[in-house]
């Protein structure tokens, strides 16, 4: 993979995360208690349910974009993407959808719902335990880095 591929992945992920519809809804999720976030995923005919599906869908897309990069290149995306925090924020709703079923016309549970997102979160968490992952990460470019060299 080239630098251009990595930059492209970061740019696509950023575009998804800064989409006004997504960002507006996430502002509500961000300030809501976990129980409220879970409740957003209960009424399948509500606007909030649609929004939750959209938000999780964004992270499924990000997972697929990052998944196309080689394992060696993915950390560059991880350095500026709060994967684990977003998973934790959306988890109450994801669990609700998994247990109720992701297909509103069928009551069958969907344990694989948001599977790509979860896999990305696991990979991110594993990366944070590596020496590179233990350096300071921020969505902003920093003027100094934790480790020199």
């Amino acid at each position, binding site marked *: 993979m080239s630098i251009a591929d990595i930059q492209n992945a970061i740019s696509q992920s950023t575009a998804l995360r800064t989409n006004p519809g997504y960002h507006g809804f996430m502002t509500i999720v961000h300030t809501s208690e976990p129980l409220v976030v879970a409740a957003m995923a209960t009424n399948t005919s509500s606007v909030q349910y649609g929004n939750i599906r959209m938000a999780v869908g964004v992270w499924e897309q990000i997972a697929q974009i990052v998944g196309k990069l080689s394992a060696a290149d993915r950390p560059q995306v991880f350095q500026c993407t*709060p994967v*684990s*925090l977003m998973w934790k924020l959306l988890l109450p709703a994801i669990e609700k959808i998994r247990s109720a079923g992701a297909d509103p016309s069928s009551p069958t549970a969907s344990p694989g719902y948001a599977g790509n997102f979860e896999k990305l979160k696991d990979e991110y968490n594993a990366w944070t335990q590596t020496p590179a992952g233990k350096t300071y990460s921020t969505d902003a470019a920093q003027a100094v880095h934790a480790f*020199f060299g």
Partner: protein
Amino acid sequence: MPGTRQTEWRSGQKWPPLPELLLRPFIDLEPCGQGPLYARGIEQYWNALAEECRPQFALQRALPAIFRAQFLSEIGRLDDIVEDPRQVPAPLRSARWETLCQAIDSWHELSADRKCRVVLLLHALCFYALISRLVFELDDTEIAADRCQAELAYWWASARYMSNLRGRAKDYVGADMADIERIARLGRHGGPVAVNAALKLLVHAAKTGAPADRLRGLQAQAEQTVDAVVAEADVFTGRLLLSRYYRAAAFVPQRQGLRADVIRMMDLAEQYAASLIPSDDAQELLYLENLHPVLESRTKEALWLGDLDLALSRARSVVDLDPYDPRTWLELGEVRSRRGEIAEAAESYAVAATLGPPASAIARHMAGTCYRDLGQPMLAGFFFKEAAEADGRAISPHDAIQALPDVPVIAALKAWSLRSFSF
């Protein structure tokens, strides 16, 4: 009215935060009593602009573009976060700042030498985008004909390089080095600026993982230029350039794993650095500012060689040399941490955090990791929270907070973190 800040400070109504005292020259070009070498250097850039009988002045270190906004934002001086010094409201300008603004206003009437002095000061203050707008691309003939034009072209290219640098230099693989290559090709005709360009090419290539053959080629080019320029330079400049050359050239044997050659080259870099005999304040600063990266590189060299005692001794030397630069304390913290001296590492990181930008958030976070590893999660939580508050777009401290043990007080911190990170 110029000098308002000074009046305000002296009135005792508001005493500025510590980072503002240490980095004051970046705000109004007035000197700082105590501060990191790169901040104290601003005084010499100013002197070279104010008194053209002095030689031009340039330190080696170029600060990241984001540094200026980060520092001003942290101390709450939002009016000073501008892309052009002339955008600072007139009542807030010092007399020196006003002089700089007037020089920029009359840019087209300035001589090439004075333009260089203005650009050097703007470069030191991190006004890289403005330099890109003021200096137009010069063609090869203009650059080759006049060393002042070559200087201008170099600092223009350097400003563009710094403007586009995000994150770590090792990840800056896509940098456009064409303009710096043009200046390096001037060789001895370019004088010291050609050495600057040749060394920048070599260091950039080494840090971004260029093949060993490419590194050897760039080293040969730099060596040829340095030899020619040193032969014509005064003793101080010659030794300074040689010290810089050997430090950069050590990347080549390091890439090949040749330990003895790395040590030999770094010994030479340090010997030349130590042999400099400054004759005035400006040269004194150049001497110290060169010793800083030499000793810093020697610390990295000791780590690379696996000699942690030597690394500690050298990291302490850098702190002694430049005690108000938070980066030196961060590096001491890293060495302490690698030695397993976690409590001492935490103290070093805490000092860096106290000194402030650009280390404020990182140093707090690193102190937090130390306390976490020492089994003090409450103290760790405090530092992680402080880091998250210092950097509104931080990820690591929030991740670290989420990973702390599940106890009631920390549960509240975790809930706060999940509601406050930048999504």
